[in-house]
């Protein structure tokens, strides 16, 4: 198959911490600052314990950890843990900011362990998959396969049959010697 333009496709791939079920970044941390919450499985960094050794960032195969150059501690996606449990927010707003912000609703949020949740249904029915499953990290965040958008354009749609001015044709052009608008108007 030809792989030269225009037979190519561009893919933008947003990625943050996948909150692995078996996160390799956690056991390597010498201080216990990296941890996985038993109650909901969110992987977090305790900024008061982290010594900024960066070892966990080597161990994350997805490359989603990042040292904060000012606070000198390791940071990563927290799944907006402060938002999703914030009882002062209306129920439907208790979601990660990225999920709320995405204008096309490309992101879903829910409990992957609940077989009836919106995300479990989407994963099950739309062929959701994990990234780099070969390492056994079992990411909680899944991706849904791309859906290709194709528009079929028929040739007769390219020309307007009822166009009296024949706009698609070359426009009339005055001769170079004829006066132009600049010559007859004073601005």
């Amino acid at each position: 198959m030809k792989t030269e333009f225009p037979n190519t496709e561009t893919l933008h791939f947003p990625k943050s911490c996948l909150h692995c079920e078996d996160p390799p970044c956690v056991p390597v941390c010498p201080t216990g600052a990296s941890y996985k919450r038993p109650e909901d499985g969110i992987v977090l960094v305790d900024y008061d314990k982290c010594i900024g050794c960066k070892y966990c960032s080597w161990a994350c195969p997805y490359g989603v950890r990042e040292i904060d150059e000012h606070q000198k501690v390791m940071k990563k996606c927290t799944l907006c843990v402060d938002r999703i449990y914030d009882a002062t927010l209306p129920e439907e707003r208790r979601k990660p900011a990225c999920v709320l912000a995405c204008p096309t609703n490309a992101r879903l949020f829910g409990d992957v362990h609940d077989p009836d949740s919106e995300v479990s249904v989407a994963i099950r029915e739309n062929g959701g998959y994990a990234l780099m499953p070969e390492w056994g990290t079992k990411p909680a965040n899944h991706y849904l396969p791309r859906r290709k958008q194709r528009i079929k354009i028929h040739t007769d749609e390219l020309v307007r049959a009822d166009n009296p001015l024949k706009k698609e044709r070359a426009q009339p052009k005055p001769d170079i010697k004829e006066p132009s608008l600049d010559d007859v108007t004073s601005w």
Partner: protein
Amino acid sequence: MHPAFSVLFLTTLIGVGQGLFLALYTAEVYAVVELLPKPPAHFYWAGSLIALAFLVGGLVASFFHLGHPERAWRSAARWRTSWLSREVIVLPLLMGAVFVYATVHYFDLDLRVLGIDTGLHGDLSLIVGAGGVAFAFLLFLCTGMIYACIKFLQEWATWLTVVNYTLFGLASGWLFATAFAAYVAPEFTRFFGYWTVIATLAVFVTRIASLIRNGRIKRKSTLQTAIGVRHRTVTQKAQGFLGGSFNTREFFHGAPVSVFRSIKWVFLVLVFPVPLILIWAGLSWRGVGLGEGLYYQVVS
């Protein structure tokens, strides 16, 4: 990878410290069974204090790559799962053992101070030293496993990583011991020198083995599995960070192509033939015939 200089100093310095201590203890064992002559008294305690200085130097260096060195004590917490944590525990244990070893030699203590008479001079230092030897090898294991346990970095995830750390530490420590002996106890120079050559040749073999292994690694992850798109031709065109990011800084060495291409060969020349030639020149320059080392062992 773009390793911090402090980490390079840490591994290099503690490697020399461990190797030097192991060299001293080996010499002591040889001397006890009278394969080597008795060295002057300060040979052991001064030598182990130098080994201790290397270990302390490594420890100090390691603090410089931490974002919060004042919290470094916390890093001993997760020894059940983290090799880094285990290293943090074993390093001070080794330092303690080396310090006690130096003290025992300085005051020339025997088990008699504890009321046990084995009739063997230096029995206490042999026992303390054996503990130190165990810690030294444990430390090599921890340092190597810090890298070898990350299975996604397939270049590191092999037992060869641990072996290489151990042998490099031994080679550098014995090399230092050779130089040290040349000043303090010349009759040991040849003994240490030969062992340095053996260790250097051994690590040459294992390092070449890992270079060959790494050259043939079959990648478990591909661009396809990374994004879950099953297509034969997937090319990464951008990293998503025009101005650079932690990932582009931490995981890219940033060296020019010429340096990158030559580093392996520079390493192979500087680390193996150069020390071997220098040590051979040094041993011959002292005007001692090749058989003399054996001669010392026979007459003593």
